[in-house]
Each structure stands twice: as structure tokens, then as C-alpha cells.
């Protein structure tokens, strides 16, 4: 009698552990995916105006389409933002339940959530082009391609990589000019910011992704790239790539000049100045603690230009004010 119950108790623990492992594993995979290969590169073949369109996506895979896409499904909010920005919004047939920008994207039919895109559901919209994100979604490629869809994986590691993805998608969606304009705007924002901070010092900057446990943006992420472009030194890059956990003690001993907390999809950082012990930090004493909206720095889309301008105001307020 009691052995049966014992076994049930054990089974419960094992099952819970298995579920937890599965979830954690899936998330870990999703995390790893974001630090895979370099951002997409424009292929020379794509410059030809007639004939098949060929571009190379974020995984280094060549994507060829005989004619511009007419039915697009996006599997990530950033991809949706890009599609609307380059004027391909009218070709969008489905997006994700996270899509919140631009406003029109909210009313798109949904293929489910980001972590569990449903292949059948995607296929039911009969898209000719699927815009996936890196990581676990990359594994959907073969399944979707067997069903006759083209898959472009957006997985940029740098700010410029996002620009490349935008021009590539412009070609695939038949809106080259508008995509080029978006990329040019991003380029101009980058050039302006670079000019502002060219001769400035490079303050040590800590970017908080999440507070409990403390997590930051490591190297090989476009957030790291943007902090560098905005004239800062990303403290998180010392902790490895991707989005690593970060020791509070090490944060304190490095004593960053600027403390920026990401707010939005993961957490509300609360009043950082009032956290226990934080009063000794230089960033807090000098009033260089800021909160930035998550979708402006963590979503590889056209609004990164705005995020970059926000970052430079935080890291180099004097240079931004002089403009």
C-alpha cells in the first residue's frame, strides 16, 4: 500500500523534473540559437533585377525565390516589424501572438506563440515565404520547405546584420526601394551616433536584462553591438555570449558608470536606485540609471535605430545634448 503511494510520489517528482527539464532545455536551445552564426549577407546574385531572387539568410543558407513573395508568415515580432516597415504589410497573412507593433500587426491571424510554432497552422495560411527566428525555429526549416514554403531565418548578431536582413527581405518581398530607405535610416542613425561619440570616453555600461537572477546581454548579441556603437563598454561582454547570468558581486566590483535596465517583456525593473546596497554604485550616485523599453533594443528590427539613439542619450548625455 504505502509502496504504491511512494512510487506515485516519486513519479510525481520525476515527471515534474522531466517537464521542467524539457521547458528549460527548450529555452536553453532558444537562447543558444541566438548566438549561432553571423547575420545574413547580401548575395551578389541578388543584385540582378530580373530572374530568380537569391539571398543568404542569418544561418548562411541560400534562399531562392522565382518571384517576389505574395503571402508571408512571420514567426517573430521583429520579423513582423520588418515586413511592415518595408511596405510588405499587405502581404502578411499571419503573425505571432506577441506581435504588438505596428498597430495593424495586432489584428493579423496568429500562428501561435514564439516558442511553439505549429507547422500545420503555418501551412494552413499557404504562405510562399516564412520569416523565422534563429534557434529552435531554424529546425522547422526542413519541415516547412518540404511543404513548398521558402524559409528565411532572421538571426542577426549585429546592428548592421539587421540592416542586411532588412534589405534581403526587401528583395524577397519585392519592395527593394522601401527596404533600402529603412536600411538607410538605420545607417544614418548609426553614422550620427558614431560621430557624436567618436572622441568621447567609453563609459563602462551594464545592461540588465532581468534582475532575479541578474542577467545581462553578453558578447555576440546586437545589444552588445549597440552599446559599443553608442560609445559604451559593455560590462556583460566579460560574462560570455548570449544572455548570461551575472554575479551581483562582480557587478559591484566593476562599478559601472552607466546602469541601463531593460523593461517590458521580461520584467519591470522597479526603482533600481532603491535596491539594497545600490547607493554605493557610481551610476546611482551620478544619476546614470536608466530604463529602456525592451522592444527598442532586444528586437532585431527597424526600431533598433530609435533604440540606438536612446542608448547614446543614456551613455553620452553630453554628446547627445550637444547635437
Amino acid at each position: 500500500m504505502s509502496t504504491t503511494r511512494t512510487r506515485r510520489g516519486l513519479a510525481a517528482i520525476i515527471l515534474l523534473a522531466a517537464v521542467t527539464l524539457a521547458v528549460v532545455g527548450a529555452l536553453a536551445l532558444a537562447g543558444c540559437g541566438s548566438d549561432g552564426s553571423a547575420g545574413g549577407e547580401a548575395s551578389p546574385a541578388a543584385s540582378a533585377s530580373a530572374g530568380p531572387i537569391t539571398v543568404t539568410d542569418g544561418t548562411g543558407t541560400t534562399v531562392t525565390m522565382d518571384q517576389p513573395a505574395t503571402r508571408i508568415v512571420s514567426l517573430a515580432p521583429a520579423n513582423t516589424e520588418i515586413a511592415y516597415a518595408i511596405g510588405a504589410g499587405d502581404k502578411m497573412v499571419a503573425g505571432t501572438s506577441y506581435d504588438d507593433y505596428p498597430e495593424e500587426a495586432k489584428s493579423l491571424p496568429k500562428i501561435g506563440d514564439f516558442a511553439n510554432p505549429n507547422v500545420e497552422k503555418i501551412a494552413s495560411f499557404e504562405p510562399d515565404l516564412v520569416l523565422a527566428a534563429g534557434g529552435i525555429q531554424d529546425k522547422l526549416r526542413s519541415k516547412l520547405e518540404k511543404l513548398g514554403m521558402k524559409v528565411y531565418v532572421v538571426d542577426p548578431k549585429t546592428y548592421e546584420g539587421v540592416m542586411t536582413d532588412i534589405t534581403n527581405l526587401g528583395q524577397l518581398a519585392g519592395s527593394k526601394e522601401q527596404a533600402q530607405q529603412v536600411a538607410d535610416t538605420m545607417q544614418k542613425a548609426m553614422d550620427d551616433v558614431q560621430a557624436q561619440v567618436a572622441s568621447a570616453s567609453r563609459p563602462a555600461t551594464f545592461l540588465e536584462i532581468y534582475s532575479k537572477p541578474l542577467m545581462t546581454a553578453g558578447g555576440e548579441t546586437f545589444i552588445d553591438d549597440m552599446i559599443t556603437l553608442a560609445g559604451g563598454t559593455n560590462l556583460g561582454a566579460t560574462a560570455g555570449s548570449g544572455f548570461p547570468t551575472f554575479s551581483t558581486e562582480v557587478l559591484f566590483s566593476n562599478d559601472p558608470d552607466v546602469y541601463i535596465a531593460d523593461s517590458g517583456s521580461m520584467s519591470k525593473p522597479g526603482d533600481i536606485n532603491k535596491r539594497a546596497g545600490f547607493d554605493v554604485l557610481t551610476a546611482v550616485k551620478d544619476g546614470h540609471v536608466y530604463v529602456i523599453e525592451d522592444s527598442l533594443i532586444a528586437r532585431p528590427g527597424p526600431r533598433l535605430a530609435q533604440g540606438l539613439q536612446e542608448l547614446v542619450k543614456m551613455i553620452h548625455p553630453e554628446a547627445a545634448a550637444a547635437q
Partner: protein
Amino acid sequence: MTRLARTSVWPGIALAGGVLVACLLVSLAFGPASLSLGEVWHFVTTGPVQGDLPNAIFWQIRLPRVLVACLVGAELAVAGVILQDLFLNPLTDPYVTGVSSGAALGATIGIVLHMSNLPWMTVLALIGGFATLGIVWMAARRRGRIDIFVLLLAGVTISYLASAVVTVLMIRANQDMYAIVYWLMGSFSGRGWPDVEIALVAVPFMIAPLFFAKEMDILLQGEKRALELGVEVERTKRVLLVTAGVLTAIAVSVSGIIGFVGLVVPHIVRLLVGPGHRSLLPVSLLLGASMMGIADLLSRTVIAPNEIPVGVVTTFVGAPLFVYLLRRGRKG
């Protein structure tokens, strides 16, 4: 019984106390920030100094974190002893009663409603934990008696139910999924003095079971025998269950869910000092605190500046040990 009563419990307790003091010293002396032992000693003797950064690393970051870890470890170990012996089931841990899943559900609701800052998160976790305990309690009550086996099964069932609701909330509020997952994994990262204060609330509940040590010893022989020997069985069960529930809810509300300490520490201590509760309870308390302190030390130093989730450390240490103990137990 007589043998247990005659043996002095103090050497064991003193030894475990020594282990805890050693663990505390090591945990406070080492950390990812390179403070020398001399500096640490200086901070200890000078006390907290306003505006001094290395001093703040010790007094505001390291010390409260070590204290929270040790308190949570002690809470889980004592709750583990109580529940294993009350259920007469060696596989019981503080999480089997459903209290932790209920607390997890409360905390998840806090995250989803963006009330994730102290004290809301803790309050909601406590409410969730106590609500679950209440439901399980009512399910197990028959004619004024608590049926321990029904309680255990109801606890497991409620655990599943609460976990399922957490999963649904995770999928529905997928923007908060990471926050929920990290909370469920358990961690002492970013814990400070406010968390110490919450964990300290549990201290009376860690000490209370000591007054029931004799009753718990007798209950090991079964409720019927205990009744014959004049133990107020139902009253004892009530007090102990509430105590274990409070300990678990407080621990989970501060740290998230950290496995194996509440399961393994009582077993190790039984091997060391035997099943008598006059030593089992205090030694488990002290060694639970020690084990969690060391686990958190490893979690924050081994791959610094990154951290290993502390639940991973306790599981890596606890799982092989537990399998070993199980095999040993079967042979015996």
C-alpha cells in the same frame, strides 16, 4: 526508546553547529568579487560603512545572500524531517504536500500581474502555499481526524493541478515565461536584507517542532501505538503539518523551488545520529543550512561572473547521494 533518551544529543548538535559555523565562514570569505580574507575580516570588525563600495559588497550583497541561503536550507530540512516522519514515508519532501506548487502558483500570478517586486511576490506565494495546505487539509479530514495517506495523495494531486495552472499561465502570458521559469528554478541571486527578514519569520517554526520531539518519536511506531501511549495524536499532527507548511511556503516564497535539500538532508542526518527527533531535528536544521550555504557558494563562484542555478548544484550533489542511500536502504 530508552536508549535514545539516555544518549546525550549535545555532541551531535555541537558538531553540526561547528559544521555550520565553518560553512558560514567559508561562504562569507569567498565570492566572485575578489575581496581578500584580510578585507573581509576588516569589514566584519568595522561593520557596515555607508558609501564604501567593497564594504557594501560584503554587507549588502554577500552577507544577506549567505544568510538567506542558510535559512532556506534549514527551513526545507526541518520541513523534510517533519513530513517524512509524519507520512512514515522516506520519499516525502517539503514539495510533495502541494504547498510549494501552491506557492509557485501564487508567485506566478504575481509575475503575470507584474507584481513581482517584494513584498507582493512573497505575500502571493505565501497565500498560494497556505491556500493549498488548506485544500489538502480539508480533503484529508474525516470525522475530526487527518488521514495522513489521503493528505499525501491529495497533496500530490494538488501539486499536479497547481503545476498545470502555472503551465497554462506560462503559455497564456508568454511574455512573462522567462520570468516564471527562472523563478521556478530557484535562486539566491539578488536577494538582500528584506529577504533575510522574511526568511527569519520562519525561525520560531523551525524551533517549535523541538517541543514535539518525544511525540514525533512515538508517532514513528504508528498512530495507534501513539494513542495507547497517551500522545495527543491529532493535535500533534495539526501543529506539525502547519509548521511544515509555513516553513515550506516561506522558503519557496524567498528562493523559488530548490530541490533535494529537504529530501536528502534528513536521510543523511538519520544515518549520522539515528531517528530520535531530539537530535534529528536540530542537526537537520544545522546541516540543511550548511548544505544550502555551500551549494550557493558553488553556484555563485564556480563559473563567475556567471552563476549556476543553485537548484542545479543541490541536485548534482543530492541526486547521487540519494541514489546511494536508497541502494543502501534496500540492502539493509
